[in-house]
């Protein structure tokens, strides 16, 4: 479904950042229905990868193929066509949702932009979307700041689902949330994948999130993918020292089941 080939992104910066590649030849492959976890520390280039795949940033070289179509060199005008089928959820929902808009309008925005629907149908779809992420229809009347972080992230997910994408890129979707909310959002993503066959690319620094949810893992360090595979095999055999470091810094609970 999504193939990333040898993606390189250099930022022409000054001083320390000069000529440092944020992405240094990254290749990935996601199949339909994957819950793909991309794990790495901050600064590893995970977010840059997401932005390059979304086409918000232009890669220096390399290719991105989505549903068999090369999208990394698309002109800006054709981007929205891709965004209808590939959506994104960001880290902090409170800064990624326009604070002046009510939830209903926020969720309706992509529906109005991507789908040619009548007014009634838009409203119905907004309510349907809210329902799918477990929010009551009355949420449509709330402003983002009236909602908790977890509810807000649900709104962001509803908004991302609204145009009916096949791929959802989640960039640290729970890092700004309290632990119980983190769990609920992860459960929601799992549900969406199981119920609707959504493909999910989860970008996170927290290896703990991936174990119970992801079927594929890739570990990223300094713009490169240092290890990949199924979580069980990848994490159990820790040939790669960096994977071992990540595993060791991730909390394990000394509770017996």
């Amino acid at each position, binding site marked *: 479904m999504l193939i990333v080939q040898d993606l390189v992104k250099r930022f022409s910066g000054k001083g320390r950042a000069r000529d440092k590649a944020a992405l240094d030849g990254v290749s990935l492959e996601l199949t339909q229905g994957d819950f793909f976890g991309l794990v790495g520390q901050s600064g590893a280039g995970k977010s840059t990868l997401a932005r390059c795949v979304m086409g918000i940033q232009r890669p220096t070289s390399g290719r991105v193929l989505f549903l068999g179509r090369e999208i990394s060199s698309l002109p800006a005008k054709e981007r929205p066509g891709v965004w209808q089928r590939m959506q994104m959820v960001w880290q*902090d929902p409170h800064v990624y949702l326009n604070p*002046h808009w009510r939830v209903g309008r926020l969720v309706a925005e992509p529906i109005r932009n991507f789908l040619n629907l009548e007014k009634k149908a838009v409203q119905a779809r907004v309510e349907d979307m809210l329902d799918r992420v477990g929010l009551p229809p009355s949420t449509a009347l709330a402003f983002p700041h009236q909602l908790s972080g977890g509810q807000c992230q649900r709104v962001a997910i509803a908004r991302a689902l609204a145009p009916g994408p096949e791929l959802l890129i989640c960039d640290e979707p729970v890092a700004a949330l309290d632990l119980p909310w983190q769990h609920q959002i992860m459960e929601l993503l799992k549900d969406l994948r199981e119920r609707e066959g959504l493909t999910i690319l989860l970008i996170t620094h927290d290896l703990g999130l991936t174990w119970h949810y992801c079927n594929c893992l890739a570990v990223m360090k300094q713009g490169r993918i240092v290890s990949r595979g199924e979580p069980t095999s990848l994490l159990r055999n820790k040939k790669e020292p960096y994977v071992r470091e990540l595993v060791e810094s991730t909390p394990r609970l000394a509770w017996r089941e």
Partner: protein
Amino acid sequence: MSAVGSLGKNRSLTAGGAILALLVLAALVGPVLAPHDPLRIDPLHRLAGPGGEYPLGTDHLGRCVCSRLLFGARISLSASLAVSLAILVLGLAVGFVAGLGGPRTDLIVMRLVDIKLAFPSLILTLAVIGALGPSLFSASLGIVLNWWPVYARMVRGLVLAAKEKEYVLAARVTGSRGLKLVRGHLLPQVLPPALLLASLETGSLILVFAGLGFLGLGVQAPTPEWGTMLSEARNYIYTAPHLLLAPGAAIFLAVLGFNLLGEGLREALNLKEAGKW
């Protein structure tokens, strides 16, 4: 939060609105209420104090201050409002073009603005008035041409900051672009500070008109206008201070009204009707 918040918001909006409504009402029905012809000269009652036949006294030619104030409201308010609006619209348009048009457009537009800002501020206004002949219209045009770059520069800065907001990026990914993006996500960020500036400047524009009037370049001599009245009163500040106080208070009220209104608008823009999205 919203219950207290909206009350406070309404308060400055209502106060500002009330003051301005009062002034606008005075401007509209002033001619009917005015006790005298504002142009009539009464040489026997020059510089009379308030009270009696002339509620606010008379000026150095014996004209009724109260009547002149009421008639003047019309010119002072409408001229400064219209000019302020024109500047705002021009500033917004240029600022948005510079802020969104890409680096080359931005460079060209901003250099033009810089050139304008490098001029001593009244030269252009005076040049326009010189070319078109002194009148209220040419003064207004001159002020608009002189003033917009300040707005354009501020709006551009606001636009540049506004488009970096995370939610603007998110909105682009949800398919909004062009005018939709400007209207829904950028303008609501840019407009409140721009309106605030406009409402403050509307007050000071009254003073600019006054200055031009004083130089004989704005409203022409006998026509009553607050700024001109203020300028004329300057010479009698010790003998007849009420001459200064009356138009001064009117200008003060107008400036206060515009400020409160601007503040109220700023808050109100973030608040839509309940129960609707």
